[in-house]
C-alpha cells in the first residue's frame, strides 16, 4: 500500500516543468511537510548476479524505500568497507560494468517510478566519458549521480554536465569538513547532501552520533537543502537516532550483509531484505 503513494509522483518530471534533480529535492520537501524521513537504500548492481540484483531493487521498492542508490561496482572501492567491497567484487566477476548498470537502470524504470541514483567511483565514469555517461543516464531515466571520490575541488565539470541534463548531483560531506568547505560543497548539491556519519568507510561502526549532530547543525546554519545521513546505519534504532537531525537516511552495508547471508535462497533473501527495509521505513515515520 505504501508503494501506491509513489505513483502520485509523475513519471516524467519534465511534464511538470522541473528537472529530475529538482524533483528529487522536492521529494525531501514533501516528506519534511509530513515530518517523515526519506529512506534511501543502496544496492550493488550485479550482486549477487544481474537478475537477482534487479529483483532486489524491486523488493526494496515494495518494502518502502523512497530512493534507490544503485552502485556500479569498481575494482578499487576505497570509500567502502568489507561488505560492499565483497559485493562489488562478486558483481564484477558476474560481468557487471557501467554500460550494463545503465541498461539495468532503464529496465527498472520501466517497472517503477522510484527515484534512482547511480553511485560510481570516478574512474569508470571518466573512462565512459563524462558527457556520454550523463547522457546515457538521462536516457535511462536515472535521477541523479553520487561519486564518493570526487571532492568539490574536482567536481566542477561533472556538476555542470549533470545540471545540463537536469540530473541530480549528490555530494558527500564528512565530520571533518570545515564550515567553509560545507558552504562550497552544498552549492554543488542538487537533490540532497550526503552526510557521512563518521570518519571511516561504508559499514563502519558509528561510535557516537556526536559528529553527525555537529555536522547537521553546521549545515543547517548555511543551507536549507535536504540532508541524508549514511555510513554505518545498522537498523531502525540508528534511524530513530539520526531522524531528528536529517531529512533522510541511507542504508547500504546492512542490507548487503543480509543479502550475503541469505543469497542461497532467493525467496528467503527477498523476505529478509523486505522485512528489514520495512522496519527501517517504520522508523522513518
Amino acid at each position, binding site marked *: 500500500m505504501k508503494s501506491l503513494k509513489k505513483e502520485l509522483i509523475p513519471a516524467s518530471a519534465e511534464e511538470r516543468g522541473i528537472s529530475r534533480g529538482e524533483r528529487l529535492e522536492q521529494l525531501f520537501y514533501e516528506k519534511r511537510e509530513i515530518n517523515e524521513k526519506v529512506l534511501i537504500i543502496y544496492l550493488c548492481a550485479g550482486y549477487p548476479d544481474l537478475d537477482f540484483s534487479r529483483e532486489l531493487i524491486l523488493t526494496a521498492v515494495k518494502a518502502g524505500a523512497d530512493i534507490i542508490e544503485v552502485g556500479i561496482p*569498481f*575494482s*578499487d*572501492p*576505497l*570509500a567502502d*568497507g*568489507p561488505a560492499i*567491497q565483497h559485493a562489488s*567484487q562478486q558483481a*564484477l566477476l558476474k560481468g557487471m*560494468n*557501467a*554500460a550494463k548498470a545503465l541498461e539495468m537502470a532503464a529496465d527498472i524504470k520501466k517497472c517503477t517510478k522510484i527515484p534512482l541514483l547511480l553511485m560510481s567511483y*570516478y*574512474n*569508470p*565514469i*571518466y*573512462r*565512459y566519458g563524462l558527457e556520454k555517461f550523463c547522457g546515457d543516464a538521462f536516457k535511462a531515466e536515472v535521477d541523479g549521480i553520487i561519486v*564518493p*571520490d*570526487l*571532492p*568539490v*575541488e*574536482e567536481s566542477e565539470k561533472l556538476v555542470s554536465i549533470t545540471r545540463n541534463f537536469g540530473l541530480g548531483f549528490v*555530494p*558527500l*560531506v*564528512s*565530520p*571533518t*569538513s*570545515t564550515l567553509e*568547505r560545507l558552504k562550497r*560543497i552544498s552549492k554543488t548539491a542538487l537533490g540532497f547532501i550526503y552526510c*557521512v556519519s563518521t*570518519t*571511516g*568507510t561504508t559499514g*563502519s561502526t558509528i561510535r557516537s552520533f556526536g559528529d553527525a549532530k555537529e555536522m547537521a547543525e553546521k549545515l543547517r546554519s548555511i543551507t536549507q537543502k535536504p540532508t541524508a545521513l549514511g555510513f554505518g546505519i545498522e537498523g531502525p534504532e540508528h534511524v530513530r537516532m539520526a531522524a531528528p537531525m536529517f531529512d533522510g537516511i541511507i542504508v547500504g552495508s546492512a542490507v548487503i550483509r543480509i543479502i550475503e547471508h541469505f543469497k542461497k535462497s532467493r525467496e528467503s533473501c527477498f523476505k529478509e531484505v523486505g522485512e528489514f527495509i520495512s522496519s527501517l521505513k517504520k522508523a522513518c515515520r
Partner: protein
Amino acid sequence: MQLHRSAYFGEYGGQFVPETVMPALKELEEEYYKAVNDENFKRELNYYLREYVGRPTPLYYAERLSEKLGGARIYLKREDLNHTGAHKINNTIGQALLALRMGKTRVIAETGAGQHGVATATAAALFGLQCQIFMGEEDMKRQELNVFRMELLGAEVVPVKSGTRTLKDATNEAIRDWVTNVRNTHYIIGSVVGPHPYPTIVRDFQKIIGEEIRKQFQEIVGGCPDYIIACVGGGSNAMGTFYPFIEQKKVRLIGVEAAGCGISTGKHAASLSAGSRGILHGTLTYILQDEFGQIEPAHSISAGLDYPGVGPEHAFLKDKGRVVYTSVTDYEALEAFHLLAKTEGILPALESAHALAYAAKIAPKLKEDNTIVVTLSGRGDKDVQCVLEQKRRKGN
C-alpha cells in the same frame, strides 16, 4: 608564504579522494610549505640524512661493467648504500618529521616488496611514532623476512586480503585506514603517486638523489652526463633523479618500466608505455585498466614495480617528451642482475636491474666519451630468494 601551488602537472594529478581526508590533505600541504621554508626543518632533515641515512651516497664509476659492455662509461648512483638499503628512506624521514610537526602520533604506510614498509617502520622507530604497515597477503608470503624486519622495528604489519592482495590493494587499505583515523594519523605514501600534495612532497624529498648526481658528476667528470636512467614503478627514485635535470635539455632522461613477461602478453606493469589515462589512488595519470575503467592487475618479477599506475608528473613529462619511457622484461632484468653481480660485486634490487638492463642495451652503441648515470635505487639482498627460485624453475 606560498599556500596553494598547483595540484596538477599539466592535466595530470589532482585530488580524487573521499571528502573525509580532504581537510587532512590541505593541512599537509600547508604544513609542508611552512616546513620547507623553515631553516630549522631543513637543518634537522639534513642532519638525519647525513648522520643516520648516510648521505651523500657515492656516484661510482662501474669500470668493469663499462668495459664488459664496451662503449659508454657507466656511473652508478648508489642509493643501495643508504640505511635500510634503498632510496625509500629519504622520503620516510622527511614525512615522519612532517607528521611530528602536525602533532600526529601514528603513521601508516602501504608496501609491496617491503622496502617502503621497512623504511617507514625505521623512521617511526627513530622518532617514536606508532606505526602500522599495510601489505598484501600475497606479498607477505613472498617477502616473509621483510615482514619480520618491520616487526623487529616495532611496526605492526596488517595483512590485506582484498582484491589482488598486492600493492594496489595494500594502498586501498591504507587509504581506508587513513579515512578512519585521519585525526591522529599521517599516511606516509611511498612513491610520487596519490592525491596532491603527495606527488610533490615525495619528489622533493627524493630530489636529493639528482642534486647529488649533478654535484658529484661535475666533480668527477665535469659537465653533465649524456644519459640518466632510472626504473619507474610509481616512480619516486626516477622523479628524484630526473627533477634537477629537467631544465638541462642536453641530458637525456630515460625511465624504464617493467615489461614483465612482455607488453604483448598483457602481463606487465608498464602504465606509461602501454596504459591509458585514468584515476587511481586519488590521482589522474596513466594506469592499467579495462574498457570500463576497472583497474587491471600489474605483473613484474620485481614487487616494487608491480603497480598499475605511475606518478602524475611522469605522465606529464611523457606527454611533454622531456623524459623517454621504455620498458624491459623480467628476463632482461634478471640478466642485468647477474651481470652487475659478476662484474662489479654488487647485487642490485630487481627494480634497479631494470634500469641497468636498459643501460646495458644502449651502452655498446655509444662512444667511450659518452656517459650514462644509472640510479641504483636499492640493493638486491631482498631479491636473492626470488632469483634463486627463477634459477631453479629454469631447471639448472
